[in-house]
C-alpha cells in the first residue's frame, strides 16, 4: 500500500500543469496543451506524458470523456503546499522550525510583495525625514 505522506517531487513543468488544473479545472490534453504547451513551444506529447506522470504520482485523476481522457487535480492546492512545506521542513534546517522556536522573520507567514514595498516606502520616507530634518 502506498504511503499517502511519502515524498513526491515535481519538475517545473509538472508543477505548471498542476497549477493549471487548480486554476482552470479539469482539462483534456488538447486544452492543457493550448494553455501550457503552446506558449512554451512544447509538443502535445510532452504535455500528455506530464499529465500521465501526475496521474502516476496520484496528484491527478483521469477519466474517459468521449474519445479522450479528461484530467483533474486529485489534491487541493493547500494540501499540496502543506505537503511540500513538510518535505522542506524535513530537509532544510531553517525552514519552519518546530513550534517551540522562532526565526527572525517567519518563514511560513510570508508578506506579499505589495506589502513589503509599502513598508519599505514608509521606512524610506521616515529615514529621509530624519536625515533631512533639523
Amino acid at each position, binding site marked *: 500500500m502506498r504511503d499517502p505522506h511519502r515524498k513526491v517531487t515535481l519538475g*517545473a513543468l509538472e*508543477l*505548471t500543469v498542476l*497549477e493549471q488544473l487548480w486554476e482552470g479545472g479539469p482539462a483534456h490534453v488538447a486544452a492543457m496543451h493550448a494553455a501550457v504547451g503552446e506558449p512554451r513551444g512544447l509538443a502535445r506529447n510532452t504535455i500528455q506524458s506530464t499529465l500521465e506522470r501526475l496521474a502516476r504520482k496520484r496528484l491527478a485523476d483521469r477519466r474517459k470523456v468521449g474519445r479522450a481522457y479528461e484530467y483533474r487535480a486529485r489534491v487541493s*492546492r493547500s494540501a499540496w*503546499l502543506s505537503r*511540500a*512545506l513538510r518535505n*522542506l521542513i524535513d530537509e*532544510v*534546517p*531553517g*525552514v519552519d*522550525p*518546530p*513550534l*517551540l*522556536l*522562532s*526565526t*527572525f*522573520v*517567519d*518563514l*511560513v*507567514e*510570508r*508578506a*506579499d*510583495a505589495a*506589502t*513589503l514595498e509599502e*513598508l*519599505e516606502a*514608509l*521606512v524610506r520616507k*521616515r*529615514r529621509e525625514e*530624519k536625515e533631512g530634518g533639523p
Partner: protein
Amino acid sequence: MSSALATAGVILAAWLSFAAATSLAVTLVWRTRDRWLPGMHPRHRAGVALAAAAAPSVVPTLLVLACLEPGLAGLAGWHRDHCLSHADHLHLCVVHATAALHAPVATILVLAGAAFGAVLGRGIRELVRTRRYVAALRCSAGPALGAGFRIVASAHPFSLATGLVRGEIWVSSALVAALSKEELDVVLMHERAHVERRDPLRRAAAAALSFPLGPRARRSVLSELALASEQACDEAAARSLGARLRVAEAILAAERLAGAAVRSTLAGLPAFGGSAVRRRIASLLEAEPAAPALLAPLRIAFFLAVGALVLVADPLHHATEHWLHLLLGGR
C-alpha cells in the same frame, strides 16, 4: 474501581472543573484585549500572553493543591481534619479516599485521563522534534564564533535562538552572505535578546500549559506571545543600537530574502498573511512605548494570591467537594 483510582478520579474531576472555569474566564477576558493590550510595551504584552497561556493549567493546579491542603494539614495535626466532620459527600482528599465512583463517571474520567496522556505525548513529541532539529543545526554548523553565534551551512536565509536552558544563536550562511554588516548586527542583537529573555523556554511553557484553552483562543494567545516576543527583541536591538529605523530595515531585508528563498524552492507558494511584519515595522516607526516596572509588584501580587489561597483552603475545599458530589454523585 479501587479507592485510590476513585480518589485520583475525584482530583482529576476537580482539576478539570477548575481548568474549564479558568479557560472560560481567560477566553472572555482575552476577547476584550483590543481595548487594553495594544498600548502596552511588547515586553508586557508578552508577559500577559504568557500568563493567559499558563493560567488554564497553573490556576487549577494551585486550586487543587489548596483543596488538598486541609486533609494534609489535618494529617499533620496542624488543624482539625475537615473530612472527619462530614460523611454526606465524597472526599477531595488524598488521606480519606473516596470509596468508589459510578461506572459512567469513572469511564468519563478514564477517558479524560487518556486525553491528558495524549496531550502530554504530543508535547513530548514536539520537544523531541525540537531537539532533533537543533541536533541537525549542530551537525551543519561551524564552531561558535566570538560574537556568540554559530553559522549553519544552508542556502536558506534564517536566524534563530534555541535552548530551553542554555541559549544558542544560529545564523545561516545564506543570511550572513546576503545581509550587510549593519543588518547582521541587528539580527544578532535581536537573537541575543531572545536568549536573554529565555523566549524558547517561555514558548515551550506557553504551548504546554495552554492546552485546556479552546483551539481558537489558544492560537490567538500563542500567536500574540510569538509576535510580542519578536517585538520585545526588536525593541531591545533598537535600544542597544540607538537606531529604530535600522532594525526596521533589517527586518524588511530579511523578509525579502526569506520570501525569495521559499518562492524559489516552492513555485506557486502564495504569501500568507504578513501581518506580523506589518505590526513590527509600524511599531518601530513609532517611539518605544512606556514600560513601567511592573515585574516586582506582579510577583508580590502573585505570592499574596497564593498565600490567600491557603487562608481560604478550607471553604474552597468544602465548596469543591459539594460541587464534585453534584457532578459525580460519589458513593
